[in-house]
Structures are given as C-alpha cells and as structure tokens.
C-alpha cells in the first residue's frame, strides 16, 4: 500500500527540462541572493576603500620591490584601465573587526580584487594553518586563528597587513613594530547603503541588459533593517526564500509584502 507522493516546487522532470521560465520572467538568470563565488562577491561588494588605502600608503618606508617598477611601467605602456597601485608602507596594519555576516570577508575580497599583487589567505577553523604567500598587501581572514609561531613569523616580515579578525590584535602588532588602525564594521547600516548592496546583487544576476530588473527601494531596505538589524547575511538569506517562493508562484517580485 502506498500513500500518494508529496512533491514540492522543484523542476522534477530533468529528462525533458526546459530552461525554467521563472527566472527569464523576472529578467534574471538565478536567484540573486544565493551564494556567490569569491570573484563575484568581490565584484558586487559595496565598500569604501579610501580610508584604508590612505592609512596603508601614507609616508613611511616603501613596501617593496623591483616588481613595483616593472608592473607600473608595464601598465603605463598598456594604457590600462586598472587604477595604478599605490605604494604600500611596511609595518602598517589595518584591522577589520566585526561580528559574523557584517561584511569582513566581502571587504577583504574587494581589496584583493583591487590590488593584483595582494595575497588573500583564509584561515579555516580546526585545520592546519595554510601556506601564507607574500603579498602587497597581505590579507589574512580570520586572523585571530593564526598560530602563535606563524603569527610571529608573519608580523616579523613587516609586510603591509590587512586583517579581518574577531579579536583585537593591536597588542601583538604593536609589539612587532606595526602602526595599526582598527575599523569596527557592522555597527551601523543605512537604508541607502543596504539598498545599494542588494541592488548590486540583482544587477549581477541580470539576464538581458536591455530589459529592466526588480529593484530594492529605500522603504524596503528600511523594513529589512528594522527586521534583521545590520546582519546582511541574514537579510540575503531572508530574501533568497522570498524570491524563490515568488518566482515559483507567479514570477513577480515583491520583496516585502
């Protein structure tokens, strides 16, 4: 005896599957609030890097190297569109401190994208410390997990550092001779900024550049902040479910009913 199957909104028929019509209707090619690759996260990041760059590149000892001249001259010869890389100071560090979901990693990825000679290292939890290459600047995500021995080695190198951390590492940095600036992120989030962050995601999932796509208004952003605070990850997760439910039902986008 079998009880009739319960099925849920999913394209079950994979054998004759057509491109799901739900996304083209909204002029999107995917749910904009799903997980992105590191490259995509860096591309859609809404971050102001000027204070950071100003701190790490003001007068001080030059970071390096023969390569600087090589790369700069290459670029001048190419008449390129990538902004000229600034000269980074040795023994300068910039810390990003904040709770989960506030954008530390997104900022790090955006910085890594902007400076081609930078290195980005993510330190996983409960796993051996990965290899740490030189970089100008060197970006270390979850820097509070640096083992003491490795931390000493990295700090002794004098490399320009950008650290995303849950714990303040000012003490060890200063003892190693670093000048440090700390930015606490996620304390505030304006509706304008949230709308810009979310609309960039929508834009990055646009199917046809000639057709319009749904937009997050300032009013909707205000309601999202009232509901979820400054936790952008929670807001994106909430919107994923909303968008998925709406395209499964009627294809129209209402982000908050």
């Amino acid at each position, binding site marked *: 005896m079998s009880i009739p199957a319960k099925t849920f909104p999913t394209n079950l028929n994979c054998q004759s599957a057509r491109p799901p019509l739900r996304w083209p209707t909204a002029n999107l090619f995917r749910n904009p609030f799903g997980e992105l690759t590191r490259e995509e996260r860096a591309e859609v990041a809404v971050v102001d890097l000027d204070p950071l760059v100003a701190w790490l590149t003001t007068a001080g000892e030059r970071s390096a190297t023969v390569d600087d001249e090589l790369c700069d001259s290459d670029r001048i010869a190419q008449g390129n569109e990538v902004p000229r890389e600034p000269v980074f100071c040795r023994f300068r560090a910039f810390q990003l401190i904040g709770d989960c979901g506030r954008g530390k990693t997104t900022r790090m990825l955006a910085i890594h994208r902007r400076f081609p000679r930078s290195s980005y290292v993510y*330190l*996983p939890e409960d796993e051996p410390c990965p290899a740490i290459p030189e970089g100008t600047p060197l970006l270390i995500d979850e820097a509070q997990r640096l083992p003491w021995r490795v931390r000493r080695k990295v700090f002794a190198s004098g490399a320009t550092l950008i650290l995303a951390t849950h714990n303040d590492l000012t003490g060890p940095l200063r003892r190693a001779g670093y000048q440090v600036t700390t930015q606490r992120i996620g304390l505030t989030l304006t509706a304008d900024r949230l709308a810009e962050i979310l609309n960039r995601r929508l834009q990055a999932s646009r199917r046809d550049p000639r057709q319009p796509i749904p937009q997050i208004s300032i009013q909707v952003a205000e309601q999202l902040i009232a509901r979820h605070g400054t936790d952008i990850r929670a807001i994106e997760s909430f919107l994923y479910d909303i968008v998925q439910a709406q395209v499964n039902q009627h294809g129209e986008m209402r982000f908050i009913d």
Partner: protein
Amino acid sequence: MAKCDLSIELDEPDRVYVGGDVITGTLHVMADSDVNCTGLEIQANWRTHGRGNVARGKSPWTTLFVGQWLSGQRESYRFELEVSDWPPSYHGNFINVDHYVDARAKIPWAFDPKASQEFLMRPISGPDPAKTKAPSALGGCIGYGVFLVVISFFVVGMGGMVVGLLTNPIVALIVGLVVFPIIALIAARSLLPKWLLGDVQVELITPHVAPGQRVRATFSFQPRRSFKLNAITADLKGTEVCVSGSGSNRTTHRNVFFEQQHVLQEGARLEAGQRQEFELDFKLPGDVPYSFDLSDNNLNWTIGLRVDIPRWPDWTKTLKLHVYPDRDAVQPAAAIESDNVRGHSDDPAVSVGGGADSPSAKHDEITFAETATHLWQLRGDAEQIDVLVDAVTGMTFEIDTYVERRLLYSGDEDPHLYKGGYAVWARHSDPPLPLVLYVPHDLGDEFEQAGRDLWHCRGTIVGWDHQHRRLQIKVLVGDG
C-alpha cells in the same frame, strides 16, 4: 568600461544536449577601442547556483584567437565544444545545476570581458557505480557497537559520579545531569527497540536505480518478545542538501522536495520467536531527478524504514539510494560512438595508471612539458592527479618557470623545505601549471634576480599540494 563586448550565439539554443555531444555556435566580439587580446577563450562547463557554495566543473579552455582588434571592429568566431557527461541540468529550490558556454577575452591590465550562454544537458550515464558504492546490507554488528558505546558511557558515568561524590558534589551533579541523560537517550533510541525486535536484517537489493525502475529491498527480524505494532513503513525521500559558507560560518540547508510513504504492515501483533520477513518493491516515478554529489551541493534519495511501536521508541534505519540514468537504455549507436571517441581520445585519463603509454613507462622520453600538460588537463580530478603524481614522483626534469611569489609560511613542518631555503609559488611556462618550488638557500639570489622573467631550473617532483592544487618540485643545486 570594458574595451570589447562578447556575445554567444548557439546554433541550437533549444536543444537538450546529451553528455558527450558537441555544442556548436558563434562567439561575436565588438571592440569599443583598440584592444590587444592575449587570448579569446571559450569552454563548455557546468556550475551550480542557489543556496549552497558554488561548485563548478573543470573543462579546459579553448583559445579561438590571439591578437589585436581595432576600435569599432566586429568579429565572429565559430566554436565546437564537447559537453560534459555529468552532472545533469537541474533546477530546484536550493540547488540549481546549469551547463554553460563561457567565453572570456584576456586583456592585459584590464578586467576581462566575459559572456555566458546556458544550455540544457541530459546525461546518458551516471558516475561510476564503484565510486558511489552504497551500503546495501545492514546487520546486527551495528547494534553491538551501539551497545558497547552505551556501556562505555555507563561505566564512565558511574565512575565519574563515584569520584565526584568523593571529591566534589558539584562534579557529581554535573555528571548526573549530563552523562545519565545522554545514556538514557541513546538507550531509548537504539537499545529499547532492539530489545523487542532482536537483530534486524535489511538489504537494499537495488542500490542503483533509474527513474521508472523498481526499488527492491528486504527487511527481516525475529522478535525476542511478543508485542503489538502500529505500522511498518518505508518513506522514500528526495532531498536537496547544500552547504553555504565555510569554517565557523558553515551552514547546512535541507529541502525535501519529494516524499512517498509505503506501508508494509499495519496494526498487527507479532509473536516472540516468529520470524518476520517483508519485501519492499515499488516503482520509482519516471520523472524524478538524478542523485548527484557536487561538493557542497547534493541531491540525495533515501528510504527511511520505521517500525512504529506504541508506547515504545520506534526502530528506524535510513538507506541511501542512488538514482542514475539507465545505462542499458542508452542508444547503441550513441554508446558505440562514445566508445570510439574514447578509443581515439588524447585524454590522459585513459592512459593514466600503468600500461605502455603511462608516464612511468616513458620515463626516459617524457619531458616536463608533457607531464605538466597531463596534470593540467586532469587538475579537476584529485584521484587521477594522485595516480599520475605517484607515477612521476622522484623524476627529475629541466623546468622553465615564472616565479609568482615567495611564501612567508609553507605549512606545518613541510618535509620538502630545504634548511634555510625558500618555498616559492611559480607556474610552468606552457601550460601554466601552478607549482610549489622548494629552493635551496644558495639559489635565493638567482630566482630573486629573475623577477617575472622566465627562470630555468632543474628539479625533482616530490608530490602534489591538494589544498592549492600545485605540483611540488624540489629544485636541485648546481644544475639550475
């Protein structure tokens, strides 16, 4: 703003492709200004999108053009690409798998223009069943294991409580509040059902099935005591399981998209010592999606067996079912063609692992460029990489590399690192296979001076860095 725009036009945009098919089309380029393109590349690849971390295939890029476009110039390039044979296109709630033709124009010191065009793929075969072996039979040894765990907990709990009572009553209280509830929970869920049912034998006769085929399993036990049961049921479930984030931010999301219950017996009284045997035999719907396991994006089919006993903990067991395309249903012509293609293929996967063509057999003739080409083509397949790297480990080659950057830290107690030496990330000249070079201290100045120019050295292959997907090479002194 990009210096040129790319667009892809497929010859048959509405066609559902079969794994191994050739997809054809035209890549259009429109230059806004003079562009020096170091590689107009195209590939047919798959990737996931949705709630889980993005997983993607590792198809090779094909270069269509290298050179210069003038401002206002429009060019079109024909392409023919082979479609991956796995995974299938799938569009769910948390997980989506799409196949794409991806194109990019590599432009020095500018962001590379890109274009993508999706298409649908229906597989004619699944992954190798040997690699996805599902446990098909379950017996009583698991029950004895659970029993041992419970006894261990009990001994530790009792010991802890006695020691605690003698030394510190607060410790005894913690032991009493934490350890004993755990023991009670495990006992309630595992041992009490077995106390009634005895040793339960389950065998999934068809661990691999195709949509529309019959799922068969047997289920038997000999009750130790007489008891009444509410029902014995088997729940077929299709679930999307995906993981987002990493490290401490790792979150697992589950979405059950299909549920079907089969009742094997209802409202009966079972007598002690009387063997009970049940046969589960039902047809899988013909339009269900296939199982897949793509890194952090899995589609799982399971059968949950349950013996529902009134006023007693239920006995439960979950069996994993693999739903794959029916290999026997593949058109013979397609199969023959597929075999022929493989027979003439240059794919290194075919020749890896011994035989006259294996790299080890050609030790005397093989060059580093050939080895690097094989590794470059296999770089998405960790198992094949291991086989090939095992075969070439210990071989010494002349190597042309471009040094990328020195490592500040190269991992815990790296056995290949020279004392006082350096670990350096580099890449081979062609193909650009990523390398880790272990450089002795004496050669430090030499590679520093090389800067970004080609650096020639002599080195021995010592392994493969799986984390960074780099071939590990120990550079030799005196021959560089």
